[in-house]
C-alpha cells in the first residue's frame, strides 16, 4: 500500500508520519508538496500536524486553499482513506471533508501529554484492529483542539457512529461530547487531534497508534490483494 504525506509550509509532524509508515508499518510512503495537483498512484493520504501557514487566520483555513486540496477532495470522494491528525484534522474540517470546527482549548493552554482514548467505533477502516471500547494511550500536542459542531451535526455523528475516538478519563481541551476523532459519513475520512504516528513504537512510550495504520492496511489488503 502506498501512502502520501501531504506537506504544507509549517507542517512539522510530516517526518513522524513518514517514519511511522515506512519504518514501523513497512509500507510505501512519499511526501507530496502542497503545490502538487495530483494524488494519482497513492492508496491512502495522510495530512500531518503542525502549523500550516503559521496557523494564521484560523488553523487550516489557508492550507485549504492549496492546490493539493482539490486532489485530496477527489481522492476522498473516491472512497480512498484520508487521515488528518491535529492540524491535519483542522484542515479537513476547513475543507468540508469533515463536519464541525476546532476552537481554542477551554483552558487556553497548549497541552502536550499522553491521554487515554476510548475506541468508540472499531468498525471503521481506521479502527478495525482495535477492540470495541478499547482504551489506548496516544499523545496530544495542541492549543486549538476543542472540537465543536452544532446540535444537529452532533446528533448525526452519534446516529451514524461517526465518533471514532473519545477522551476516556480526562478531556484535555473541552471538546463537545469528549470527541477526540470523527469519521465522515462514508467512513473513509478520519480526523483526530491526538497523534497516532507518535505512538508507533514501544521505544517512544507506546505503540497503540500503530494499530490505526495497521487497520488501514488490513482493510486495503482485503479489498485489493485477496480478490
Amino acid at each position, binding site marked *: 500500500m502506498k501512502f502520501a504525506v501531504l506537506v504544507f509550509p509549517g507542517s512539522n509532524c510530516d517526518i513522524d508520519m513518514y517514519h511511522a509508515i515506512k519504518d514501523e508499518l513497512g509500507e510505501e510512503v512519499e511526501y507530496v508538496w502542497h503545490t502538487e495537483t495530483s494524488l494519482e498512484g497513492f492508496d491512502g493520504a495522510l495530512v500531518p500536524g503542525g502549523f500550516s501557514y503559521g496557523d494564521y487566520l484560523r488553523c487550516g483555513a489557508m492550507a485549504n486553499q492549496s492546490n493539493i486540496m482539490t486532489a485530496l477532495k477527489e481522492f476522498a470522494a473516491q472512497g480512498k482513506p484520508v487521515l488528518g491528525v491535529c492540524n491535519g484534522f483542522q484542515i479537513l474540517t476547513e475543507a468540508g471533508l469533515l463536519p*464541525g*470546527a476546532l476552537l*481554542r482549548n477551554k483552558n*487556553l493552554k497548549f497541552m502536550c501529554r499522553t491521554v487515554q482514548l476510548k475506541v468508540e467505533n472499531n468498525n471503521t477502516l481506521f479502527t478495525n484492529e482495535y477492540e470495541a471500547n478499547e482504551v489506548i494511550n496516544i499523545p496530544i500536542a495542541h492549543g486549538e483542539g476543542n472540537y465543536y459542531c452544532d446540535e444537529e451535526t452532533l446528533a448525526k455523528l452519534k446516529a451514524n457512529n461517526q465518533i471514532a475516538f473519545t477522551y476516556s478519563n480526562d478531556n484535555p481541551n473541552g471538546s463537545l461530547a469528549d470527541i477526540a476523532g470523527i469519521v465522515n459519513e462514508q467512513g473513509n475520512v478520519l480526523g483526530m487531534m491526538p497523534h497516532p504516528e507518535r505512538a508507533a513504537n514501544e521505544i517512544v512510550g507506546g505503540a497503540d497508534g500503530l494499530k490505526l495504520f495497521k487497520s488501514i492496511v488490513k482493510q486495503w489488503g482485503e479489498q485489493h490483494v485477496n480478490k
Partner: protein
Amino acid sequence: MKKVKIYVTLKESILDPQGSAVQGSLKKIGYEEVADLRIGKYLELTIGETTRDIDTIVKEMCEKVLTNTVIENYRYEVEEA
C-alpha cells in the same frame, strides 16, 4: 478604490475562553461592571477597480476563507478609500 472593514466574532453560543480570561483580568483590577467580553478579529482590505459587485465579492471571501461560518459571524462596512 473601496476600503472594506470586516469584523469577525465568535457566535454567541460559542464559549470564548480568551474573552472570559480578559474579563476576569478587568474585574481583578476593579472593573466589576464589565458584564461580558468577547474577542473577535478585525480585517481591513482595499479593493481596486472592479466591475463586480462589492457586496458579492466580500460575502464570497468571508464565506470561503475569511470566516468559518460553523463558529463565527461577520459583518462589514464599505467606505470610499
